[in-house]
């Protein structure tokens, strides 16, 4: 069974290669089927690994694919590690991945680069599986960079669209560059680990830190803080979260798969994987918990004030990732992984439903445009022509409840699950995180536990509020544009995955119910200190009350007095004023970075480009110094040396030869036969004379 695990990479690889080579000649349906079947086959392999683990008393098993680097004592194999943690991630990646592949067949219908999209998606699945199944930090890093690459490629998938026709490409670049900063942290952490342990294998490293923990506390702190930098980059935490909202420029299935369900959780996976190191570094744990909780609140506030349906979800994702990071920072690894799973279900559901909404509204826009044209006849100059309406702006929606029934219901399920209402998936996982914070803060009496608890409670209130706002704005009230008025439901390829995910969002909590702790017991086999947290009634009750209050408030603000038209200001604008603007401006973090880091960087780049490279290097060194020296040398060589010396010598030689010929050889040739005969005679006499003498 364990021997099958390389196939989990082989299937998506095969799918990718088939679409790369033959995609040009296949129709959309076949391309989609190849990619989806490849991912589904990987899912089957992942499920088989559960059976394999069950047969092995849940002990970890490593499968060697190939030797990679062997230099002296350094041995780094391509090795896949099958344990409960990695199998959990494999199931998540391939399972949710398959659903999103199927959805994308419908969503990407008639896209120019249909085959390329599925090639990228399969490549992403491969890289994500390398990340979660690698047996050492270097393989994790390979996968880490690989998913970063796929993220870049897919954010900029419609690279010719967006602001100034390069907006999407810019968003991709931003994600890539911001992630590089975090990756540097991981690289340095890996160097430190290798310097201390002499190996990057998970087994060796974690064993080392478990047994020599007391002596290397400082080192562990340094490594884990650097890991935090990497995780903050990939999982979009403070201060690197700015790339994720822009990443919504990619197609919606990408947002669902990469930027909500899988890739952005890589940071949490890595922290959970390195749990033994983190347990030695209390300072880092506090930092991780506070970064996570701070991000959760900050992103939650921003999400309240956004208009773009996907941007709200993006900030929501950042906020929920903050929950997970806070959980693993508090040592609640099971809670973090639990929330990671349930969040993958309902956030993928929300993104895909949002995609369905966008798709429906776009169709509605096309339908209303053609209707308008039918009425107006050929008269294009009439006032009927209105500017292109943004199909992602919630102000242009409204009233979709009756027009897209199925999408509405699944969206509602996702929103309620995300808000954390009993008994949906989000309730159980979020509650376990809160219980962890309560445990650390109130029972163990540590200040950061209290802080995290307060921050997360705030974030949970915001979550319930902005999801209510979004659902009301999109689905309730009257349509605020002709596009929304004509919106229609989508084909079954898109809606079927939504239903599956909706079911998972409802039932996902069953993975780790209180007292049973299925997931906790399962993960316990990977690290012995992975424990589920017991249900805490007061925590659950208070958060449920606050959630319901927030939902009530949201309904009151947005449903009682809905937006009047697509240009009206938000209802909170009047109440909160500048605070709302501050949230809408995303705390002006982008502007802050632009004014500080970017400006410094651009100044440096300009200085290097114009002053150093152009003025000094090009104009001075190349044009003046080198070119002048070359010209001088060339003039000296061509003038005195070549013309004056070498040429003259050969001219003289030629003159000499000519003079010899004219003066001496020419008179000899008289043309008279007798002269030649005389020559012959003299020659004969000479020869005879020599013979006589000898």
């Amino acid at each position, binding site marked *: 069974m364990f021997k099958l695990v390389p196939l989990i990479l082989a299937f998506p690889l095969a799918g990718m290669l088939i679409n790369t080579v033959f995609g040009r000649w296949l129709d959309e349906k076949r391309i989609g089927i190849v990619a989806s079947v490849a991912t589904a086959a990987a899912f089957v392999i992942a499920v088989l690994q559960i059976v394999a683990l069950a047969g092995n008393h849940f002990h970890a098993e490593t499968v060697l694919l190939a030797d990679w680097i062997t230099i002296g004592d350094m041995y780094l194999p391509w090795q896949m590690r099958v344990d409960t943690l990695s199998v959990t991630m494999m199931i998540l990646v391939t399972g949710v991945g398959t659903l999103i592949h199927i959805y994308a067949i419908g969503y990407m219908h008639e896209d120019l680069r249909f085959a390329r999209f599925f090639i990228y998606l399969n490549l992403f699945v491969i890289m994500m599986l390398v990340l979660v199944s690698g047996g050492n930090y270097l393989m994790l890093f390979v996968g880490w960079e690989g998913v970063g690459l796929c993220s870049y490629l897919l954010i900029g998938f419609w690279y010719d669209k967006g602001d100034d026709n390069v907006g999407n490409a810019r968003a991709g670049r931003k994600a890539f560059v911001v992630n590089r900063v975090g990756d540097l942290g991981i690289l340095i952490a890996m160097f430190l680990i290798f310097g201390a342990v002499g190996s990057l294998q998970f087994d060796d490293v974690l064993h080392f830190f478990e047994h020599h923990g007391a002596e290397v506390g400082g080192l562990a702190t340094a490594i884990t803080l650097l890991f935090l930098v990497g995780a903050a980059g990939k999982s979009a935490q403070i201060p690197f979260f700015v790339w994720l909202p822009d990443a919504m420029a990619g197609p919606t299935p990408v947002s669902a798969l990469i930027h909500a369900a899988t890739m952005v959780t890589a940071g949490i996976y890595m922290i959970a994987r390195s749990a033994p190191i983190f347990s030695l570094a209390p300072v880092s744990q506090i930092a991780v918990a506070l970064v996570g909780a701070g991000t959760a609140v900050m992103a939650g506030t921003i999400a309240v004030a956004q208009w773009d349906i996907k941007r709200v979800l993006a900030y929501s994702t950042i906020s929920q990732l903050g929950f997970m990071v806070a959980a693993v920072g508090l040592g609640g690894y099971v809670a973090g992984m639990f929330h990671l799973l349930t969040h993958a279900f309902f956030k993928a559901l929300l993104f895909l439903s949002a995609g369905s909404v966008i798709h429906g509204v776009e169709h509605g826009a096309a339908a209303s445009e053609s209707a308008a044209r039918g009425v107006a006849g050929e008269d294009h100059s009439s006032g009927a022509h209105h500017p292109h309406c943004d199909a992602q702006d919630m102000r242009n929606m409204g009233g979709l409840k009756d027009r897209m029934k199925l999408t509405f219901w699944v969206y509602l399920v996702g929103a309620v699950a995300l808000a954390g209402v009993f008994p949906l998936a989000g309730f159980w996982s979020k509650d376990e995180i809160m219980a962890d914070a309560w445990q650390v803060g109130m029972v163990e009496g540590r200040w950061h536990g209290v802080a995290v608890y307060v921050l997360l409670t705030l974030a949970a209130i915001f979550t319930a509020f902005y999801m209510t706002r979004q659902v009301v704005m999109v689905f309730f009230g009257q349509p605020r544009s002709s596009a929304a008025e004509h919106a229609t439901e989508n084909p079954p390829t898109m809606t079927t995955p939504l239903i599956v995910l909706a079911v998972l969002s409802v039932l996902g909590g069953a993975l780790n119910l209180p007292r049973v702790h299925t997931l906790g017991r399962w993960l316990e086999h990977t690290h012995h200190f992975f424990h589920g947290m017991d249900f805490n009634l007061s925590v659950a009750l208070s958060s449920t009350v606050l959630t319901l209050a927030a939902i009530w408030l949201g309904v009151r603000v947005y449903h009682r007095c809905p937006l009047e038209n697509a240009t009206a200001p938000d209802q909170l604008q009047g109440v909160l004023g500048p605070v709302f603007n501050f949230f809408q401006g995303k705390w002006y973090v982008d502007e802050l970075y632009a004014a500080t880091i970017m400006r410094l960087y651009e100044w440096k780049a300009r200085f290097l480009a114009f002053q150093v490279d152009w003025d000094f290097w090009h104009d001075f060194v190349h044009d003046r110094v080198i070119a002048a020296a070359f010209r001088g040398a060339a003039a000296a060589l061509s003038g005195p040396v070549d013309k004056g010396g070498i040429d003259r010598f050969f001219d003289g030689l030629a003159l000499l030869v000519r003079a010899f010929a004219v003066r001496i*050889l*020419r*008179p*000899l*040739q*008289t*043309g*008279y*036969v*007798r002269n030649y*005969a*005389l020559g012959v*005679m003299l020659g004969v006499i000479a020869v005879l004379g020599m013979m006589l003498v000898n």
Partner: protein
Amino acid sequence: MIPTTYYLALSALLFSIGVVGVLVRRNAIIIFMAIELMLNSANLAFVAYAHEFGTLDGQIMVFFVMTVAAAEVAVGLALIVAIFRSKASIDVDQVNLLRG
């Protein structure tokens, strides 16, 4: 019996006359005859030696020389006729196209 030396002296004399004839005369026919004179002086020397040593080699060689001379006369006269046709003269000094 006339000693062989006399024949050789005669042969040398004839050869010298031929050489001088070739070098100093301008009439092509005369030059030609001078060449024949040289050839025949060689023949005389061959025959003289053949007689001296009592072998037939020299005698046979004379026949070859005479044959070659006959062929040479045919070619040479043809040349002279061709020159006469173009120059209307057989003065060899008129034929100096190779002058440098």
